[in-house]
């Protein structure tokens, strides 16, 4: 039991921090990057690839670094700290994670290799206008066509869906949910991208008899999807921790400099106590997020651990996001100042793969089946 990073992990954190600082040392830089399509900086993406970060969790055989969930968490937290808009979790953790888990050796070599080199942006097209945080597909169906398959239906919102070179798509097949690969230039693929409130991009992706191949052996992949989503939830949790950390630091610094009534705002205990409560939320969420990554590394029940982290991070993110704006006053709701963007991103993360109530409901369904929770024991370790 040890929550500390080792020296290599510390080095990794410093390196990622340094790399991202080149692109996002102030919030104006981020504002101009997200103002133009594709909503992130391709140069920063290449630098992430050069440092090996885009292949971090993939095996060396697949062109990756063979690193574990803690390393992924470190990168995600640094991304959150500066709100870097690059689709690291979307491409590497989620889409890449699915390919790594179920792809054939050939698919892994090609797609994971391309992701690691920074030449392939892959995303998971899964959410549908009629579903809500399920591991299954309902509205997109796969039909056999000769040797391959065609897909029909709509996925939305798909993060970075318009920019992606390859889409990993969930679709109804034989009563289950299968996974398919669709190339960005496939016929019958219509993508309409747009900006989202947090500055990133999403898309409506329409399949009209679009040719596709199965990812891996085919068949029902609900369990693999559930697991990949859980791992992505944990990673987004770390991104949120980084964002909350900056939101809190920014707020504390503001309270020390903003003057009203002849004194700096930190002279009002009504405000400093609220900052203290933000810290309480942040540290509880941080512990839970770190724990979830360790459960993943230890091979424990990652789905349940992810739900616990999701619940804690969701509650903390809302608390800290709202208070960070409120304690700033008017400047907090402007697009010209940084802090509100953190609230915006935290709100987006909260709704990407399941919010706190959603996670609490999943945990609630299970409470009768055990007596106490031991985070260091079964089913986690």
């Amino acid at each position: 039991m040890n929550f500390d990073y080792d020296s290599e992990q510390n080095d990794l954190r410093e390196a990622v921090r340094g790399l991202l600082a080149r692109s996002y040392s102030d919030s104006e830089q981020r504002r101009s990057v997200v103002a133009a399509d594709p909503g992130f900086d391709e140069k920063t993406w290449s630098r992430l690839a050069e440092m090996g970060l885009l292949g971090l969790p993939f095996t060396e055989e697949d062109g990756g670094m063979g690193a574990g969930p803690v390393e992924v968490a470190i990168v995600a937290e640094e991304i959150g700290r500066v709100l870097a808009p690059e689709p690291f979790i979307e491409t590497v953790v989620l889409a890449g994670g699915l390919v790594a888990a179920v792809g054939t050796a050939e698919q892994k070599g090609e797609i994971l290799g391309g992701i690691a080199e920074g030449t392939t942006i892959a995303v998971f097209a899964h959410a549908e206008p009629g579903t809500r945080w399920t591991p299954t597909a309902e509205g997109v169906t796969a039909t056999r066509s000769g040797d391959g398959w065609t897909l029909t239906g709509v996925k939305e919102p798909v993060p970075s869906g318009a920019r992606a070179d390859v889409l990993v798509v969930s679709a109804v097949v034989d009563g289950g949910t299968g996974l398919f690969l669709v190339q960005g230039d496939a016929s019958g693929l219509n993508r309409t991208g747009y900006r989202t409130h947090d500055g990133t991009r999403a898309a409506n992706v329409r399949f009209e008899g679009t040719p596709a191949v199965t990812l891996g052996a085919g068949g029902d992949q609900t369990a693999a999807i559930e697991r990949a989503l859980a791992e992505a939830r944990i990673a987004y949790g770390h991104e949120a921790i980084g964002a909350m950390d900056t939101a809190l630091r920014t707020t504390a610094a503001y309270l020390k400099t903003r003057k009203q009534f002849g004194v700096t705002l930190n002279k009002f205990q009504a405000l400093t106590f609220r900052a203290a409560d933000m810290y309480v939320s942040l540290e509880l969420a941080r512990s839970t997020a770190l724990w979830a990554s360790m459960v993943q590394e230890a091979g424990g029940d990652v789905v349940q651990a992810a739900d616990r982290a999701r619940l804690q991070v969701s509650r903390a993110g809302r608390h800290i996001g709202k208070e960070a704006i409120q304690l700033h006053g008017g400047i907090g709701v402007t697009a010209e100042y940084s802090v509100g963007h953190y609230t915006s991103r935290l709100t987006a993360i909260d709704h990407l793969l399941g919010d706190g109530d959603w996670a609490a409901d999943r945990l609630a369904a299970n409470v009768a089946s055990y007596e106490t929770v031991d985070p260091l024991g079964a089913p986690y370790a």
Partner: protein
Amino acid sequence: MRLQLSPELEAFREEMRTFFTTQVPQEIRDTVAAHRHVSKEQYVKTQRVLNAAGLAVPHWPVEWGGKDWTPLQRHIWREEMQLANVPEPLAFNTSMIGPVIATFGNQEQKERFLPKTANLDIWWCQGFSEPDAGSDLASLRTTAVRDGNDWVVNGQKTWTTLGQHADWIFCLVRTDPTAEKKQRGISLLVFPMDSPGVTLRPIELLDGGFEVNEVFFEDVRVPADDLIGEENRGWDYAKFLLGNERVGIARVGTTKRMLAQAKEHAREITVGGRPLSEDPRMAARIAELENELVALELTALRVVANSADGKPHPASSVLKLRGSELQQAATELFVDIAGPLSLASFAGEGSDVPEWARVATPHFLNYRKVSIYGGSNEVQRTIIAGSILGL
């Protein structure tokens, strides 16, 4: 104590409801219902429809278009307007500068400004806050120096809501920098926004909208006649005005309308094979919000039924505090009902996500403002603790 409205008030309520739902163009009410930005033309059109029927400024003196209604009638008027998704008459005109001019202005100023203010022929903006004078408004630094028959204004205002539409600004300026108390040396000046030396810079908010501005003054000359009331009494007028601002700030009707919409949307979303509206957690959350709103509405009614002598009921201070919190909770509810669809915030044509779900998060982010402006919720707590509890 009596629960029911009198038959006269019931009839009054019906009359208001009918007017608002039949006389204000549907397209404008749809804009409000959909949480889209209301355009200048839509505000102007609505206020003129109301004003023609004597419903824009019922709380003003009868002589200037007021109605001599009871506080309860005014409450019903406002609540029905909000329930019908009618954009309220521009607060800067009808709740702020109008009543100040009607109470403290001279006859010439009343004649010159009040009819046009009621009819939104003049669009006013509020020049109070400055970069270093927010909660501590009395520390404002914009100055006006007398030069012959003019005041010469220099300085900066900020957060000026819809200043880009405004014809005139009412502005707190420091006219006596030597006054012992900083509240004493402040006056209220009014001048056109196109006066030489006035420049405006829009500020983008988190939802991507432009509703506030910075306004800069460089040697702006304002005729001495355009000082409202007495020199150096501006702070009293500001307090009077902000007191009026707090009336109706609970926005019970607006939140009630939002909760009704939220229930409708929750019926459209399916989770685990059933409508989200039937999800026990979601249903309980809505029930709690509705109950909080009932408590707020009843408190508002208790306050209006009790303030006949003109003095605000002490409980009125809870209206802004809780009213803003409930408005914010309602906007958050929309985001959570939209769930993953809330990510499609700026989707346009070609999106399968319904419009209400797309605007949910920008609206939620924008509404963080309601606990900040009009006296922040911390300021409201300071008032409750200090003025009411004597702490």
